């Protein structure tokens, strides 16, 4: 690859990345530590002294620990069973097990309440009075909802980690007389640890800062909701900045520990597995026994979704103290699509996500190219930086963007110009900030996909083109991009799907109803008195169907490599 071209790409991508990713973080840090031009630790200390903030942080930490533990308990045994046994229906359940990903947990919360609430389906089924299963133990409601939608990330990681272990490792242990659980504990588990930690980190950071689920379940005593509530004071109060900084610091520290402790691929297998993996085929009753845990997990995990679907089909008011809705209707769908806010939100989400993915694709390919194909010093740093959005909670990023927008819209040149207001003031038009936020947060998926594609593509294929007289752009267009198309499509699909259902940025940055994306509209509809939750559910079902199609598409293209995309 031409040196000058790669230097230019390196410089441009670094600058763009610094501007769009590091600037909001810098604004957060500045806002918490520099007040009226002087450096102070008063607000950072204040966060820990203020009983409300420290309780919120503590609760968020508990949420993250609880969710991650639950996710591990669900995902690791399932992954182990998947790798160990060949059982009837395996193809089906290993696909279905990923389905919960297709719904943001906060939408599931609506269905969850319909089933587990005091006047919901479960109590009616059991013939109980108004027992609130979520009740004051909202904590359990939040972590179980989060765990039920996040465990696929862990499952994919654990699965990939297990599949990567050379069967000879376990065979060698067995040969020396080690078997059963001891073999798992002493050999298998340590070998899959990097994968588990990678998946665990993402789940932890995600649940630590999750905003939608606690909001819907009305669990207000956690840091993310406190930050959301403090947004109105973003111009004047340094406390939310300091609070966001603490969340950022926790997440980045955890991510860094994972990186340093496991160095990405600490236990590189010395040989590619020489033997075919030693799966055991089980049939009949034993086969059903293996199948059972999968079926249970899928059933429980899909409860919120079923609740959402049922709600969307229920005639408003007809699902009250009954197992299922008493009267069914499709009017909610008609109303959801007819509602002014809904139509514009679908259009908005499509616009934001498409722009974000297009921007992402260009930036992602450029970064991947420099990382894989150039010998520039510092390309490793760019690679690591491009993965950092996984370590930085969406809430923190959204807060940073909001702060930047608030700062900029106070300047005279923005105040005096409609053009700049439309571009930079989210209160006027959040398009630019939403596109940037969506795109930067999904950049890791795109970069990983493109890097994987380039690494699988031998550089001699490009050299052969250069040798025959093709210049840089011709080679890129005729050889490189066609060869990595599958990876690019998969990465773009995922980035698109996750952008469509993004929560934190959407809730925080979209402030005018005509610019609301789908998720914010669902959130707002939910709060409408009377029919709100039914219409919100109908829109949620639409979103589920949409995400299901894209994720199935991506997994068909990527095959088993889907897990690699969720690894930090």
């Amino acid at each position: 690859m031409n040196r000058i071209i790669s230097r230019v790409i390196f410089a441009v991508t670094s600058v763009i990345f610094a501007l769009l990713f590091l600037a909001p973080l810098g604004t957060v840090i500045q806002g918490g530590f520099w007040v009226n031009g002087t450096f102070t630790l008063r607000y950072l200390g204040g966060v820990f002294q203020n009983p409300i903030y420290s309780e919120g942080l503590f609760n968020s930490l508990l949420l993250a620990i609880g969710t991650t533990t639950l996710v591990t308990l669900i995902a690791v045994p399932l992954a182990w069973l998947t790798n160990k046994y060949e059982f009837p229906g395996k193809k089906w359940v290993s696909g279905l097990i990923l389905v919960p990903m297709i719904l943001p947990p906060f939408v599931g919360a609506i269905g969850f309440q319909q089933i587990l609430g005091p006047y919901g389906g479960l109590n009616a089924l059991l013939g109980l009075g108004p027992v609130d299963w979520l009740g004051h133990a909202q904590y359990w409601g939040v972590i179980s909802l989060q765990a039920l939608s996040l465990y696929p990330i862990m499952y994919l990681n654990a699965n990939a980690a297990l599949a990567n272990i050379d069967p000879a490792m376990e065979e060698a242990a067995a040969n020396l007389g080690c078997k059963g659980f001891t073999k798992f504990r002493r050999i298998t588990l340590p070998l899959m640890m990097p994968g588990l930690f990678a998946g665990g980190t993402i789940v932890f950071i995600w649940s630590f800062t999750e905003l939608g689920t606690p909001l819907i379940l009305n669990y207000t005593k956690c840091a993310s909701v406190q930050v959301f509530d403090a947004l109105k004071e973003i111009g004047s109060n340094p406390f939310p900045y300091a609070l966001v900084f603490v969340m950022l610091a926790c997440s980045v520290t955890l991510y860094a520990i994972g990186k340093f402790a496991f160095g990405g691929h600490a236990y590189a297998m010395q040989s590619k597995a020489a033997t075919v993996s030693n799966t055991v085929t089980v049939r009949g009753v034993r086969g059903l026994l293996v199948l059972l845990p999968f079926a249970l997990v899928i059933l429980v995990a899909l409860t919120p979704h079923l609740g959402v679907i049922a709600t969307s089909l229920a005639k408003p008011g007809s699902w009250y103290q009954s197992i299922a809705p008493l009267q069914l209707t499709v009017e909610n769908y008609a109303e959801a699509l007819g509602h002014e806010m809904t139509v514009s939100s679908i259009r908005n989400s499509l616009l934001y996500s498409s722009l974000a993915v297009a921007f992402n694709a260009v930036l992602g390919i450029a970064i991947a190219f420099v990382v894989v194909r150039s010998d520039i010093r510092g390309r490793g740093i760019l690679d690591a930086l491009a993965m950092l959005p996984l370590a930085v909670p969406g809430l923190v990023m959204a807060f940073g963007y909001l702060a930047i927008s608030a700062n900029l819209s106070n300047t005279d040149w923005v105040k005096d110009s409609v053009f700049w207001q439309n571009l930079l003031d989210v209160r006027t038009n959040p398009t630019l900030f939403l596109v940037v936020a969506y795109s930067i947060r999904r950049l890791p998926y795109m970069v990983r996909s493109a890097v994987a594609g380039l690494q699988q593509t031998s550089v001699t294929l490009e050299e052969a083109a250069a040798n025959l007289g093709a210049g840089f752009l011709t080679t890129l267009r005729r050889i490189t991009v066609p060869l990595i198309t599958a990876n690019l499509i998969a990465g773009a699909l995922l980035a698109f799907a996750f952008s469509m259902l993004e929560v934190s940025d959407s809730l925080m940055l979209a402030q005018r109803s005509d610019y609301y994306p789908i998720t914010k509209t669902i959130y707002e509809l939910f709060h409408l008195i009377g029919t709100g939750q039914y219409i919100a559910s109908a829109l949620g079902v639409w979103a589920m169907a949409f995400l299901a199609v894209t994720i199935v598409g991506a997994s068909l293209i990527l095959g088993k490599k889907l897990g690699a995309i969720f690894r930090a």
Partner: protein
Amino acid sequence: MAVAVRLDTVTKRFGDLTVVDRITLTIEPGELFFLLGPSGCGKTTLLRSIAGFYIPEHGAIRIGDRDVTRLAPDERDTGMVFQSYALWPHMTVAQNVAFGLELRKISKAEIDQRVAEALAMVKMSDRAQYKPNQLSGGQQQRVALARALVIRPQCLLLDEPLSNLDAKLRLDMRTEIRRICKQAGLTAIYVTHDQKEALSIADRMAILDKGIIQQCGSPEEVYRRPVNRFVANFIGETNFIEGRVLSVDDGQATLDTPIGRVVSTALPREPLRPNQAITLSLRPEVIHAGTEPKDPTNVFRGAAHDTVYLGEMAQHLINVPVPGAQDVVLKVFELNPKMVTHDDEVKDVQFWFRPGNAVVLTG
């Protein structure tokens, strides 16, 4: 039209490591030239520098009358055959071959005609619409060759083109490559670590080690008259005997060695001085054992043992006793073997070699 390739003190470093060290070399027009050496000797680096994938820190590379030292790969007009073939999997055989012609803005009709010719030349016409992954290794190799040849490059570069093929195919393909190169009248530079490939089809070859050309010459020159221990040892098998010069007279030297006095007429270019330390290189096939000497100059006795019988020949070890020191052990090939020992049997034999086959090395 074939052109010469000239390298002038070409030097390539990776960090502190000098991989190609001041190599100066001229490859004549139409010549099939081999770069031969063990892995890590710098041969591939040198080839990639000629192709433009590396820019040397020092020196100049000329193809014909063009100085290409700093040109990008796509401006050099070389045709390269990669070790892994590097056929583009998303294009058919015909599309792969046509690619270089399309970039040269050649008319569609002419492209079709030249692609057909090139595929005919490598006997792949019936596979034009296949994808590369539907072809065997040998077929892919032919397509890679056609793709490099079809642009009529000024010079053809081959990077271990046969190393991924099985032994039988390798034999067929190497004569095939020579036929095609000579038929097209191309200047070709061929990198390999396989001495049989080089000896069998090269016009000339350069032996590289540690980034330096150790010897450059025709296969016969390099094999029969290696200039130093590295070359003698790398090409073929040999026996080394340390010794000293007793006297030099008119292209003939008498040497003092542990096995006795040896007379040699295969002397190095630089004159020898009496009492100078030298190494004698004796190929196993030039030592004749168990037959009547046809030349009485260098005749010795030893104990033959550990015979390995191979049918058309036998390999013996002969121990030559040295008073007050360890025996010298010589490896000897006997063609159409008669003198076969079994197991622990030891046979006292007489052996001899011609002065012209006893190569004196000073390096």
